[in-house]
């Protein structure tokens, strides 16, 4: 779960990481009022759950109420990388003396938390990592020990920032506290700013919460709602299914993330373009399969569907029953061609049931993938 800037900053405020004063606004009028309350200059910042908004025109610095209103009306409702901007953060301008980068993240490779610092903040850190890797310094942390002052000395002292270590440690240790208490995968400040008056402020904020921790991370419902998770994903989540929207026209349903990914790969290899990733998980019930098939059929532009099941705990009869339920809802038909491949646990019985339905069956994954691509172009044989 990637938080919006103002959401992340709300968590920053709770642990005492200094941030500029800001007011969230959802209309140009609100933004104008907020701006005049704060005094000028102010920054008007699009609230989107990913980076790169600066380049995309999502941040404007303005000097008057009128300019604030017009900037907000430009940004609000605009589309940034497919995300419709629903709110802006109106934030007091900060006189920047220096910009740094500070983050704490899960290092998957080393399997420990890592603290990352760069004396060059406010830029695309991925790009910086490619162009000037020596400007990014990091230290592995021990989850048992956490962040200690010497880690920050190791990061700052060699680049001549020794006099900032105590101020940065204070912020970094609060970030670490947040990282741990909120089950974060990433907490990032880019830029971390030294102001002209010498104080250190988090100008931006990025925070990713581990989805697996949602059962113990309370009070995030409002954040989640604001994040506007697509309807299909929400519906799938409620059924215990894992749905990811893709850009193509062939619906793909399978059991197990790896197998669904492999199925997507084979559809692509066959020249098709998958419309989604839908994993019904282990031991799916007929109801779950029906629900998943309904979601995929409900997505606009889907021309054909491939259902690929290798029964382990999942029973193929159950899957066939799930398909059958949807066929019944459509009065004995299906709106687009559906190719089914069943193997493993209950395959024989499942295939018998499937062959009585308006679907095509294929014995292997390769053949099924090829067939679904073919029928997505022709409309199928049934």
């Amino acid at each position, binding site marked *: 779960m990637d938080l919006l800037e103002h959401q992340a900053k709300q968590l920053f405020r709770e642990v005492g990481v200094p941030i500029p004063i800001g007011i969230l606004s959802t209309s140009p009028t609100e933004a104008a009022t907020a701006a005049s309350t704060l005094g000028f200059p102010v920054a008007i910042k699009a609230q989107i759950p*990913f980076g790169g908004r600066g380049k995309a025109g999502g941040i404007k610095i303005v000097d008057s109420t009128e300019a604030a209103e017009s900037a907000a009306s430009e940004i609000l409702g605009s589309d940034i990388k497919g995300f419709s901007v629903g709110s802006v953060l109106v934030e007091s301008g900060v006189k920047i003396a220096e910009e740094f980068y500070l983050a704490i993240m*899960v290092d*998957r*490779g080393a*399997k*420990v*938390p890592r603290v990352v610092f760069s004396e060059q903040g406010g830029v695309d850190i*991925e790009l910086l990592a490619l162009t000037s890797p020596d400007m990014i310094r990091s230290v592995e942390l*021990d*989850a*048992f020990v956490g962040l200690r002052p010497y880690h920050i000395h190791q990061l700052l002292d060699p680049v001549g920032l020794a006099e900032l270590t105590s101020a940065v440690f204070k912020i970094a240790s609060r970030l670490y506290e947040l990282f*741990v208490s909120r*089950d974060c*995968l990433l907490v990032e400040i880019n830029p971390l700013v030294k102001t002209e008056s010498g104080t250190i402020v988090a100008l931006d904020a990025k925070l990713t919460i*581990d*989805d*697996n*921790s949602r*059962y*113990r991370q309370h009070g995030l419902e409002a954040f989640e709602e604001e994040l506007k998770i697509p309807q299909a994903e929400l519906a799938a989540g409620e059924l215990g299914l*894992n749905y*990811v929207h*893709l*850009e193509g026209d062939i619906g793909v349903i*399978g*059991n*197990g*993330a*790896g*197998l*669904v*990914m*492999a199925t*997507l*790969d*084979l*559809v*692509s*290899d066959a020249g098709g373009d*998958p419309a989604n*990733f839908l*994993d019904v998980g*282990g031991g799916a019930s007929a109801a779950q399969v029906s629900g998943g098939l309904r979601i995929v059929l409900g997505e606009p532009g889907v021309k054909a569907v491939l259902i690929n099941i*290798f*029964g*382990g*705990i*999942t029973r193929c009869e159950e899957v066939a029953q799930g398909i059958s339920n949807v066929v019944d809802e459509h009065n004995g038909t299906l709106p687009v061609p559906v190719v089914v491949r069943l*193997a*493993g*646990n209950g395959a024989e019985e499942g295939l018998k049931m499937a062959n009585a339905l308006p679907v095509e069956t294929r014995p*292997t*994954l*390769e053949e099924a993938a090829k067939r679904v691509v073919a029928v997505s172009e022709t409309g199928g044989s049934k």
Partner: protein
Amino acid sequence: MSVLVDASTKVIVQGLTGHEGSFHAQRMIACGTQVVGGVTPGKGGTEEVGLPVFDTVEEAVRKTGASASVIFVPAPFAYDAILEASDSLQTVVCVTEGVPVKDMMIARRLIHQKKVSLVGPNCPGIVCPKAKVNIGIMPESIFTPGPVGVVSRSGTLTYEIVNDLTLEGIGQSTCIGIGGDPIPGTTFIEALAAFESDDDTKAVIMIGEIGGDEEEKAAEFAAENLSKPLVAYIAGFSAPPGKKMGHAGAIVSQGKGTAASKKAVLESKGIPVASTPVGIVKAVRSVLG
């Protein structure tokens, strides 16, 4: 011989009295696995599917001589179950999915100190067809004894591939599903090291997917330390960046961990990479000679 477990391995089921635990305990027993009891705190002294239930792992181990456990408890209790198991056992298989990354950072740190092998979480388990040991949730019917070690981040994709191997007459020595989580208890490297010292294993299939760099690190490791042929399958060539594909670990982020980049690294180390089940069967047949 085999990897992590053998014919003498006695297994307890943590969460035996739950739906999953009791179902798979029966299934494992039917496969020939020596399941000797289960643990459910507060239900000690009762019986479940004919097995004694204990309050604590410590007691279960003391009274049954188990050396391995398989965990079926819900995600919020998995961390505790792993820690408790690691106090008393040598091999721990955690089937539970949805374990927070923070819990696993700490658990992995601890089990490494204790020289415990943890497989999972979010994994299908371990199967050794020759020793008739099946710990976890993998369907017994698809396996047959043979020379190929299989290690995989995926569940059903593994079944698909193992099934194809078996149909083609290529048996398996041990199959380890290490699970798709970002921080697994056992990594590819650790599994490859185990296969290297297993006499029954003549070649190894590594089934990887997008995300992380464990496949790349395993390739480096194999180039230096694995004397047996290794072939790989990578899932997720068609996955777009920034989308998480089911597994918490299966995400291409920041341009890293793509299937193409993994393939390139593996091939640079001389490891053939397939992207279809047919392809991987062909590849392993060719290295088996």
